[in-house]
């Protein structure tokens, strides 16, 4: 159960996702999709209930084993695209940024300051974080916003690859993700 300012956003919500499964969260604006993702990532605490990860690394929290791609991208406008990505690689303990920019069609923008990127390019740079450090759970908050057809295809491909490697993806979305979700959870009407 989760409340925001006395208003219960959802209660009695119960779902699981196994390795290789894609769960889509749907619902109108304000239904609590983002809140649910933040709750799974451990950024907010539920009033009641728990989030559990079976078979993960027990020394680390779920948040430390999940990538959260939200509305804010954590991009520093003063640094170049590559420097931004390199920072997240080093900070999150990834291996290399080699080839990761290409993975989302950002190679031509490598040396541009991130401040000049368009909304879709910023989104892609944010998504590139998924690729520089391996984490089993991807929490994607409307990942397709602002993406063009080609980037959408690249993203779908990366998501498919991640699922095939046994990862879990939970994505809040209004549109198509380019692959069929294993389960769809429709959150209730907004007040």
């Amino acid at each position, binding site marked *: 159960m989760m409340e925001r300012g006395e208003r219960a956003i959802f209660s009695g919500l119960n779902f699981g996702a196994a390795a290789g499964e894609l769960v889509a969260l749907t619902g109108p604006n304000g239904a609590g999709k983002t809140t649910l993702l933040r709750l799974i990532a451990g950024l*907010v605490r539920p009033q009641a209930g728990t989030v559990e990860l079976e078979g993960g690394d027990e020394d680390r929290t779920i948040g430390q084993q999940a990538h959260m791609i939200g509305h*804010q991208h954590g991009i520093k406008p003063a*640094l170049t695209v590559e420097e931004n990505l390199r920072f997240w690689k080093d900070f999150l303990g990834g291996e290399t940024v080699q080839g990761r920019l290409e993975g989302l069609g950002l190679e031509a923008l490598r040396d541009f300051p991130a401040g000049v990127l368009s909304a879709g390019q910023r989104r892609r740079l944010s998504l590139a974080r998924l690729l520089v450090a391996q984490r089993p759970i991807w929490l994607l908050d409307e990942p397709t916003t602002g993406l063009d057809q080609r980037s959408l295809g690249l993203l779908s491909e990366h998501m498919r690859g991640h699922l095939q490697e046994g990862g879990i993806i939970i994505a809040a979305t209004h549109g198509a993700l380019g692959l069929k979700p294993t389960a769809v959870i429709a959150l209730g009407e907004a007040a």
Partner: protein
Amino acid sequence: MKPIAALIRRDLGVALRQGSSLGTAIGFFLAVVMLLPIGLGPDQALLQRIAPGALWIALLLSVLLSADRIFLDDYDDGSLELLASGPLSFELVTLTKACVHWLTAGLPLAVIAPILGFLVNIGPDQVLPLAAAMIMGSLGISLLAALGAAVTVGLRRGGMMVSLLILPLYVPVMIFGVAASTPQTIMAGSGVSSLMILAALSLAALVMVPIAASAALRAYMQ
């Protein structure tokens, strides 16, 4: 260590490229120190007597100018949440960010202060004690500023709140900082003990501020 190094490198890179906080701090410090002798007139004895206090006040206020930005940019662009879910404990993240603020605002000022001190007529034998006290004290100043910044990060126009909240905590740093760099106390031999207390204040802040600041930031992210 690698995440810490990465965070330091990023924050230094941003600070150097934007250059705003360091530039503002140094500009403000220069303005105060250069205007002081003009405002007070040519009484050299008076200048020498008030020089350490004036330099400390200038240092404190210059550092405060950029204090509210320590966590604000990261809070606004979502980096803070991502940093909180990294492999590094969040206390270390806040400590690292406070130390980067010291490197880009407190330390440069502490280093140029004794040189600019000649403008307000400090004696040559004061230079070393002043530099030591300022380098030591500015670390505490930056750490306390980080605490204020963390407590007010989600408030719009939190700048004034930072000053009000942190000012009382600055009083001990100020007292012992000035005591460690005035000629009278240095002559009387109590300069070193003041310096020790100053170091103790900074070290206490080094331990306590990350815990308090990260708790405040976590509360804002809820």
